[in-house]
């Protein structure tokens, strides 16, 4: 096998070769190898809790849920929880903010959440006249492409780079490389390095997961059968949601009879729920790690001719509508899309030399029986996320598909 022979020499060969040339030629590789945390999380695998579970972070998020945020109450995307501010003078843009070139490496727009979010960000940019150029590269969900995108953007003379990583572990090196050249703002999903100027995200998956789980623990009678529906394994945000829920369920007397992956496919969700109902006679509560398919789940119960048990969803309009129309016992923790506005604001603050939090924790409101009507917006498309904080943005509601 010639390729084999060729290759056996090549992989290390290239490395050595490169190492030699390292002095002479440029390397985009990050100096230190990160992933210390990665290997550490590997060790946690031993414990029966998923490797994505980190006790202290869990406790932190639970605590944050009750903290009152700093900042304007009517602008949750500018609020921050327990911020430790950091100085950003080093990044202050010479000659003022005028003519700022902002760049954004997006993991993709492969789901409605990200589509709403991107619209938020674009609209936010419109608010700031000083941003004269806003470059967005879409990685279409490909880690490899996003790495190149980031490399490309760092060479485009951006004043600041916003990154929404497709994957935590795999994007880390690229982000580290970028940090060396431009101020980097990471949001939504994190990276395993603290080189970005700030990392913007809401309270997080643990908070989300436990809110939903606690709701069921409260509403469903002991020994009740719980069906846990997850999108797909391996997505850190979602894994966190589940692992937190797991903690809650383990403490409770509820009986989680099934944990299934729906791949976000509504048809598959309906099948799974239908089968679950027939297998277990009844289902007393449904926990979901994301709202995308909760309506399908609700329908499955209807089609099976049984009452819809307490169910958790997300702040998508179709779910909120079903909730109201069908008078469900439900709750919708959110992973607010308004967080897409914050990075732009942060970027401008940084370039202005204003202080920003090292980790910018945003509040993570929950839609409940009480405030349901505030978030159920007539005329918005079914897959629109209520927690977009976009009502005051230019082009609303048309650009978001509403009327």
């Amino acid at each position, binding site marked *: 096998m*010639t390729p*084999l022979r060729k290759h056996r020499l*090549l992989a290390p060969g290239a490395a050595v070769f490169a190492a030699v040339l390292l002095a002479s030629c440029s390397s985009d590789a990050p100096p230190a*190898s990160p992933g210390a945390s990665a290997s550490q999380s*590997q060790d946690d695998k031993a414990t029966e809790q998923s490797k994505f579970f980190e006790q202290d972070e869990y406790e932190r998020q639970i605590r944050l849920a009750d903290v009152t945020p700093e900042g304007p109450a009517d602008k949750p995307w500018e609020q921050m929880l327990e911020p430790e501010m950091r100085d950003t003078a080093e990044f202050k843009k010479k000659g003022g903010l005028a003519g700022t070139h902002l760049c954004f490496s997006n993991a993709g727009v492969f789901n409605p959440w990200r589509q709403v979010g991107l619209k938020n960000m674009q609209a936010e940019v419109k608010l700031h006249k000083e941003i004269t150029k806003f470059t967005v590269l879409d990685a279409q969900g490909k880690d490899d492409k996003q790495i190149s995108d980031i*490399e490309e953007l760092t060479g485009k003379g951006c004043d600041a780079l916003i990154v929404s990583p497709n994957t935590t572990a795999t994007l880390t090196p690229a982000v580290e490389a970028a940090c060396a050249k431009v101020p980097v703002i990471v949001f939504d999903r994190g990276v395993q390095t603290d080189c970005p100027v700030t990392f913007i995200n809401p309270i997080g998956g643990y908070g989300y997961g436990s809110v939903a789980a606690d709701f069921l623990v409260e509403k469903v009678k002991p020994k009740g059968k719980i069906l846990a529906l997850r999108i797909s394994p391996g997505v850190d945000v979602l894994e966190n949601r589940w692992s937190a829920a797991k903690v809650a369920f383990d403490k409770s007397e509820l009986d989680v009879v099934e944990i299934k992956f729906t791949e976000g496919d509504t048809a598959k969700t309906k099948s799974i729920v239908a089968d679950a109902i027939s297998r277990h006679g009844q289902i007393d509560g449904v926990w979901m790690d994301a709202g995308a398919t909760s309506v399908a789940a609700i329908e499955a119960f209807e089609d099976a001719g049984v009452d819809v048990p307490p169910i958790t969803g997300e702040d998508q309009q179709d779910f909120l509508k079903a909730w109201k129309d069908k008078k469900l016992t439900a709750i919708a923790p959110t992973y607010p899309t308004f967080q897409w506005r914050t990075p732009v604001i942060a970027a401008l603050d940084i370039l202005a030399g204003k202080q920003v939090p090292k980790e910018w924790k945003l509040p993570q409101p929950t839609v409940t029986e009480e405030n349901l009507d505030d978030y159920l917006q007539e005329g918005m498309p079914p897959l629109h996320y209520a927690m977009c904080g976009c009502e005051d943005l230019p082009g609303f509601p048309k650009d978001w598909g509403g009327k």
Partner: protein
Amino acid sequence: MTPTALAPAVAQPGPKPRRVKLTDPAVGVWLAAAVVIVLGWLIVTLDGGSFFARANITTILSNCVALGLVAVGQSAVILTGSLDLSVAYLISLGTLVAAETMQDGSVVTGVLAVLALSVAVGLANGLIVTGLKVNAFIATLGTAFILRGWIEDNYTGPAGQVPASFRHLGYDRIGPVPVSVFLLAAVAAAVWFLTRRTRLGHHMYATGGDEHAARLSGVRTRRTVVVAHVICSLCVGAAALFLASRLGAGAPWAGTEARYDLESIAAVVLGGTALAGGRGGVAGTLGGVLILAVLDSVFNQLSVDPFFKNVVRGVVIIAAVALYARRGRKTA
């Protein structure tokens, strides 16, 4: 007797066939690639961007690597008249195996592990196709499902981690040229050599061209097909290694999210290799890959809506093949 009298209707093509002919798809593809580059440069410059900026060139090149490696392998099987739909999942598994073995082993063991895996999968594909006489489409689709199950059953998300030393493969560059491009070049050269210069290669073309004729001429067609599948998988393994070094870890969706299975086939066909086998080659495939990469970069520069990209890609692929079909009809 004068030989010319023997056959009135001989079309002696070109001055001497060995010299490059425009009718040779590979040449056409590279010309097309050149055109695309020029157009891209024009458009981007008009748009106020700089197409030949260092960063951009680097991006284009490094975007070629992964798809290029897979496509090169894919052309080997397609030449032989077969097909491999399992590449995407093999890549994913490859990155995971690489990252995990390298985490608690040396780089070399990691590389070997991946290549071993590749050989195994390649053999499986080849033997199912030739031995069980299962149509390649279904056979490799089946192995794809099997690999997928294996991955999803054993991995939840990124796993393992490659040492810094190995990451140089993914990140270093000499001037504007990423080191990984040399990997692609090496593998491509190897496969090109294999298909064009060795008996095996000649037999691959023969098997893909007319299996019956090949057999009558004493070619061991089955063996050839199996070997082709192994070669393909090895190239895929190389791609997996590259991605692992680039991602720094193994990712279960490294291969599938990029649809390497269909994309690679598209690239191969775009490169002028006949899906039926027997015609075309690695050179053309690389051209096809380059075209796709350049298109991507141009779209990036103009920040075209990602959904719109797919439309264009689809059109380009169909149009290209339609062109080949036309030319084929002419020469036939």
